[in-house]
């Protein structure tokens, strides 16, 4: 059975290689090859899952050693895969949602002339992501970690003829690199501390190391997680990443890649457990991000960016849960999975809306679409109910658990974190209701209002409409796109209930992550009640603002906070002024310094030698008598010197 693990990665990798090297011959079938490879990987995943289920809880870890990668004395990096309950969960999520999104993309990217390449990149992403979750040591994980970064870079910048897309892609890669730096420092620290970076020995002996070292490792891992999962302070790339095609946003920037940070923290649980200071930082980062993302999500008029803010916020929940230690690990992963379903569904819904609206992304130019796109409306609506935590749907179960766990942390911290989580729940309800109302309800603001086509003129059917300022004709998307949406909507509705039935999910993951019940100062019912109250408040305010009043099609100026939130709470402006401008000045002045100072010293030496010889040259004036003078002078000096020497 172990030998199947490599196939999980190999299938999409092969797909990527074939599609990217295959050339134009494969244009006609490329998308099906890609989907096939992704599905094959899913099938292998299911087979392995069945195998794991058939074993005892303690024996559910499969190891496959492939080859020795980098052997230098004590530094031994192997290409070894580890499939346990945690990675199994991820494998199913990645390949499952991934295959659905492949299928969706067949329709969504139908008119793009570079569709084959798109599927190549998607397969590359799957391979890298699976490598990330299957790796048995941190260095191999790092390969997957940067691999998904590369795939993300390629896919965000897929429409790279648009400068904005190319810039967004570069930004995503760079911000992620800052996080990667954290991961590589963490690996170096592990090697210096433990002499290895394989999961088994490091996590098994974590408590043998000093707490200072462990805190340092944990903080560096957190930095890595912040980069990949768009957590404050490295969150700025996620909003821009929406420049990519919508299936990409659904798969990479909602369901899978951005949750890699949570995986990393949960996987390294043993280290974090032994470093309480680092755990506190993790929870703070999670809490801040969940509020940050939610606030940003409230102000965006771009449907994808609103959802991106929401993703950030939901991952904030997961990170918060992961920071709580064994109380929260399982719930972090559970929320991650349910979030994978409903957020992917929401993004696919958004893509479907855009597909029908000539790629308009401004929600102020939507309205009343429920009549025109019934399937999209229903699936999106179910996703909406799931994310706000409507009782009975999956978001309800997973988010509620996290809020409970936050209170269970105990002490003042518990109260603060719990309160943050509750406020976040209210804001989530607000912004998601806003998205829902602005898109599917209200008056049809797109009528008599030609839309521009900001996304990929050549890539989309919009190309035909462009230039004539045609009114959009909202229509339902083809089956190949709606089926994945329906499947994901199913997941959004039932996954939480299913996972929670008899604490199934908890028992499944517990052997890997460990679990402990905190002692919450509040009863579970109280927390649920409070969450419900928050939900109602959020929905109510949103309804009052966007449901009962008409939505202006041009955004009003808004309050200071709204304006700041629209600009991602000024984080980008800060980055721009401090990092971009500052960096430009630094490099420019360094170029100047290199030219004038470093090179100048050398050139100056050369010039002064040249100048000296120029002056010496003047002595050679061609007048025989002046030469004679110097001869006599020289002779006189020699004689004088001889006499002087003798005198001494």
């Amino acid at each position, binding site marked *: 059975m172990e030998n199947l693990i490599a196939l999980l990665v190999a299938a999409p990798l092969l797909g990527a290689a074939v599609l*990217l090297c295959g050339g134009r011959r494969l244009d006609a079938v490329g998308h099906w090859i890609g989907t096939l490879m992704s599905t094959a990987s899913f099938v292998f995943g299911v087979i392995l899952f069945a195998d794991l289920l058939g074993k005892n809880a303690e024996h559910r870890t499969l190891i496959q050693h492939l*080859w020795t*990668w*980098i*052997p*230098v*004395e*004590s*530094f031994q990096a192997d290409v070894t895969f580890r499939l346990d309950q945690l990675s199994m969960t991820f494998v199913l999520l990645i390949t499952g949602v991934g295959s659905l999104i492949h299928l969706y993309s067949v329709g969504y990217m139908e008119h793009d002339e570079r569709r084959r390449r798109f599927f190549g990149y998607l397969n590359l992403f799957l391979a890298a992501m699976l490598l990330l979750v299957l790796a048995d040591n941190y*260095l191999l994980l790092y*390969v997957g*970690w*940067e*691999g998904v970064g*590369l795939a993300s*870079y390629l896919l965000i*910048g897929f429409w*790279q*003829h*648009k*400068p904005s*897309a*190319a*810039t967004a*892609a*570069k930004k995503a*890669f*760079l911000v992620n*690199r*800052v996080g*990667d*730096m954290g991961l*590589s*420092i963490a690996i*170096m*620290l592990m*090697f*210096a*501390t*433990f*002499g*290895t970076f*394989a999961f088994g*020995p*490091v996590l098994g*002996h974590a408590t*043998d*190391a*000093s707490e200072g*070292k462990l805190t340092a490792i944990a903080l560096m891992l957190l930095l890595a997680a912040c980069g990949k999962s768009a957590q404050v302070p490295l969150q700025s790339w996620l909003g821009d990443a929406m420049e990519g095609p919508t299936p990409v946003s659904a798969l990479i920037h909602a369901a899978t890649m951005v949750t890699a940070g949570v995986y990393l923290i949960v996987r390294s649980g043993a280290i974090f457990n032994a470093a309480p200071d680092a755990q506190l930082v993790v929870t703070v980062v999670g809490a801040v991000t969940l509020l940050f993302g939610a606030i940003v999500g409230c102000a965006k008029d771009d449907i994808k960016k609103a959802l991106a803010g929401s993703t950030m916020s939901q991952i904030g929940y997961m990170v918060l849960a992961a920071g709580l230690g064994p109380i929260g690990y399982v719930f972090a992963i559970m929320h991650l999975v349910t979030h994978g379903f409903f957020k992917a569904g929401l993004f696919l819904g958004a893509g479907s809306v855009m597909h029908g609206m000539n790629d308009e992304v401004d929600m102020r130019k939507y309205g009343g679409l429920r009549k025109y796109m019934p399937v999209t409306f229903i699936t999106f609506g179910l996703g909406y109910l799931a994310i706000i935590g409507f009782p009975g749907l999956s978001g309800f179960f997973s988010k509620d658990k996290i809020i409970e766990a936050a209170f269970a942390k105990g002490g003042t911290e518990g109260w603060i974190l719990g309160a943050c989580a509750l406020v976040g729940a209210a804001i989530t309800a607000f912004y998601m209701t806003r998205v829902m109302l602005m898109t599917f309800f209200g008056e049809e603001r797109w009528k008599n209002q030609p839309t521009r086509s900001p996304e990929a003129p050549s890539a989309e059917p919009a190309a035909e409409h462009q230039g004539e300022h045609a009114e959009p004709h909202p229509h339902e998307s083809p089956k190949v796109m709606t089926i994945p949406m329906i499947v994901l909507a199913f997941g959004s509705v039932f996954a939480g209930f299913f996972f929670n039935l008899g604490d199934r999910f908890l028992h499944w993951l517990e052997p890997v992550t460990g679990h402990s019940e905190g002692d919450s100062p509040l009863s579970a019912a109280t927390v649920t009640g409070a969450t419900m109250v928050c939900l109602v408040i959020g929905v109510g305010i949103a309804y009052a603002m966007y449901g009962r009043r008409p939505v202006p099609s041009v955004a009003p100026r808004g309050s200071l906070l709204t304006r700041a939130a629209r600009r991602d709470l000024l984080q980008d402006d800060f980055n721009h002024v401090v990092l971009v401008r500052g*960096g*430009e000045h*630094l*490099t*420019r002045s*360094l*170029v100047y310094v*290199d030219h004038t100072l*470093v090179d100048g010293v*050398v050139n100056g030496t050369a010039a002064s030698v040249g100048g000296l010889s120029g002056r010496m040259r003047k002595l050679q004036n061609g007048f025989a008598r002046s030469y004679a003078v110097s001869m006599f002078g020289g002779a006189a000096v020699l004689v004088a010197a001889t006499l002087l020497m003798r005198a001494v």
Partner: protein
Amino acid sequence: MSFPLLTATAVLPAIGAVATAAVPAAQRTAAKWLALLVSLATLALAITVLVRFDPNGGRYQLTESHAWIADFGVRYELGVDGIAVALIALTALLIPFIVLAGWHDADPLETGSRRWRPTQGFFALILAVEAMVIISFEATDVFLFYIFFEAMLIPMYFLIGGFGDRAHEHGEEAASTQRSYAAVKFLLYNLVGGLIMLAAVIGLYVVAGNFSLQEIAQARANGSLHMATSTERWLFLGFFFAFAVKAPLWPLHTWLPNAMQESTAPVAVLITAVVDKVGTFAMLRFCLQLFPEASKWATPVILVLALVSIVYGALLAVGQRDIKRLVAYASISHFGFIIMGIFAMTSQGQSGATLYMVNHGISTAAWMLLAGFLISRRGSRLIADYGGVQKVAPVLAGTFLIGTLATLSLPGLAPFVSEFLVLVGTFTRYPAIGIIGTFGIVLAALYALVLYQRTMTGPVKPEVSAMPDLRVRELLVVAPLIVLLIFLGVYPKPVTDIVNPAVKSTLSDVHKTDPKPEVEAVAK
């Protein structure tokens, strides 16, 4: 007596150089083919060396030794360890690609031009450089090494000064001036380094009485040759200075951007991927073996200079407007990593550094040659003159992206392995320096991606719109390099197996052992 394999490997390209130069003027194409065949034959010999070399055998293998200038104890002594074998293989591997990539670089300009471009000379000079580089890697006699270390400058001078890019924004006259400036700068820098080294070589002879690396190292190890601390330090500095100029290490680097900017892309590759490696190689072989104590004494300063090189080179690369200068500064940053790895004095650091030399050679060759293909199509080196190439020439852009990713050390490609080893090796002994060095990977992403973004993405510039994609010859150059990059990134074991034992003996020369981990219980 067995067949002198090492001599043959060095002499073959030398004979090839003479033969290529002797091809009649009219038969240009024949000269090209001859050069290509000779370089391929040399590659075959180098592979034979690789196969005959036993990683777990003695330290120096395939040795040859003959008396040469008996009065001064100069001997013709050759021998290779794992590090040298790896670098000989790299050199022999890259030259055919350089020849192939430069196939048309030395063709005569259009009729009516006054400039005469001696095609035969171009390829003969490349082969001559190859011969000298290979023998520098093989020499175990300090004097022999010195001679070829210096003689290399002559063909390089002519290659830089005589053959520039076809197109130049300020016309042929200005190009010629700048070329000779670059060539003279190259020559002067390296000559100054070489002269200081000559003084140190003579000093070494005065102290030791012969030039044999092995004898001196042995005598030093068993105590029969005593060297005063200050003498050792001065001699070390003399050697190191020359190697640091060649490598190049900040602040002795300014010749490299000029030289790479003005020469054609294949020659730029020859400089940075082949010739400069002699500098870093010699640090490992001569500085550490002959002057172990002084090497340790100088380590802190050298590490700081290497660190400055890494960050400074990367920052300057970000600020460049000229594609080739950007690549040159990127190389300076990479050489910082190599030197850092060497002087970290850990097995990971030094194995990583050796691996880095190989990987940097391959990745820069791929990146720079592709940049050269790009430049030859548009006739400009300025980044701002490009845009949207991806749309017009997808294969060129795709391969260039892989080169870019290799430069920024993406895991899965070869340079990552070496860069990470260097960083880990440095970190275990000098954590602060390791961490600052890690900033280099962020900056590398910045300069590499900025270049890619500005040239390849965005709207198609009108001047670029008719750009042809890669031709078969160009693809033949690039594809094998990319395959190698991926292969060595996924499975670097063949190289590390050869290099590791050599590094081990080098480390034992300087009496250093790897730092022990804090938690020792975790044995595998």
